[in-house]
């Protein structure tokens, strides 16, 4: 279904990509040039899995390149069209990050210098936990595989507001699921700070959620722990704020919190209802 849809997109649209009048240095990039930056600071991405390693954020890279249509942006390869001044559409390929919770040795950790911090430990009897009363450690289950998302996104711009809708599918048939995301983003300035706030809601299909968070015989012989996960709805909100220090250096902060939805939180593998992502530091733009 997706391949046919992509072909329709390819042949139906022959427009130049997003050459919008773009002046906000926070979200704009010069066509044909690499944008490479590195940020140093302190932060963490929490892990909702039982015994899952929270991910320390010490060094953050930022790598992007945009051609006339093709682009690479922080791990996402894509091809973009601009049907009109306020609308862009792209098809893309990116790593599905769901698997990141299951291993400390995810790509992000290539850039990290320290050991994991603040891991979610296996709850002890009597300990108050947010998840179900039965649980299983991420260390005791079968291996989950990485996957690639192939999808399309359409964006509508209205001044400093951006609405987008994303549909992505499992390109490697690892979980055979899909997800859909609606997102709103607003750019604004406050004193010397440039800020971007966003809110999104994501639907994840039962195949996707069940592959990663379902518990089956492959994970344990204890049938009381078996769990078939259903689809889930996740809400997310975040803020990115940057204050220039000079041409290359700037202060950088990022916060985001996401609810996981009952399809995940009812799993014996999950002990948190939310995932937080926080980082504060300084960034250098090469």
């Amino acid at each position, binding site marked *: 279904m997706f391949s046919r849809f992509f072909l329709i997109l390819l042949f139906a649209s022959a427009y130049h990509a997003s050459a919008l009048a773009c002046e906000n240095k926070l979200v704009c990039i010069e066509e044909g040039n690499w944008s490479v930056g590195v*940020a140093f600071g302190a932060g963490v991405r929490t892990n909702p899995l039982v015994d899952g390693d929270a991910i320390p954020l010490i060094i953050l890279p930022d790598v992007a390149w945009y051609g006339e249509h093709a682009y690479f942006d922080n791990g996402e390869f894509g091809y973009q069209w601009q049907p009109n001044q306020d609308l862009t559409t792209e098809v893309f390929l990116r790593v599905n990050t769901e698997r990141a919770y299951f291993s400390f040795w995810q790509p992000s950790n290539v850039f990290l210098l320290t050991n994991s911090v603040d891991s979610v430990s296996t709850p002890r009897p009597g300990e108050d936990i947010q998840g179900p009363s039965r649980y299983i450690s991420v260390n005791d289950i079968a291996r989950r595989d990485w996957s690639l998302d192939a999808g399309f996104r359409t964006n509508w711009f209205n001044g400093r507001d951006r609405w987008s809708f994303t549909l992505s599918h499992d390109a490697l048939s690892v979980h055979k699921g899909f997800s859909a995301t609606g997102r709103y983003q607003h750019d604004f300035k406050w004193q010397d700070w440039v800020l971007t706030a966003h809110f999104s809601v994501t639907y994840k299909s039962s195949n996707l959620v069940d592959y990663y968070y379902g518990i089956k015989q492959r994970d344990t012989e204890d049938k009381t722990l078996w769990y078939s996960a259903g689809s889930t709805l996740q809400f997310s909100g975040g803020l990115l704020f940057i204050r220039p220090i000079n041409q290359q250096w700037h202060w950088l902060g990022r916060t985001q919190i996401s609810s996981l939805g009952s399809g995940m939180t009812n799993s014996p593998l999950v002990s948190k209802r939310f995932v937080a*992502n926080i980082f504060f530091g300084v*960034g250098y733009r090469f």
Partner: protein
Amino acid sequence: MRIFLLAIPLLLHFPIYAKDKNSARFSAYPNECITAQKGEICILPITLTYPEMSSREHCLHINNRLLGCWLPDKLPTDLSIELYADSTLTLMSEDENKAPFVTLKVKYRQASTHRRRVRNPWSLF
């Protein structure tokens, strides 16, 4: 508002000749028009050189749009053409199968177009 910019002849560029095997060729000079940025109309004054032709009327077409028909000795040598994108100027006549053409290119001075990023910066993890 339509911003018209003068075409800037590129002195280092030689005219592009028509893909015709005649000894004298259909050519236009200059064949490149430079404008500030995409979406703007580029006005290109060109000088045309013609091959040997029959005495019948010949017509000039820009992207299959008829500009006009003239007898060989009345064909315009200087034209000013509005370009929206790369275009093809074709010399056609009823009695000749071959239709020599030249390609007129549009370039943009503001090559460093800024685009809005799909993802926010620092959003890898």
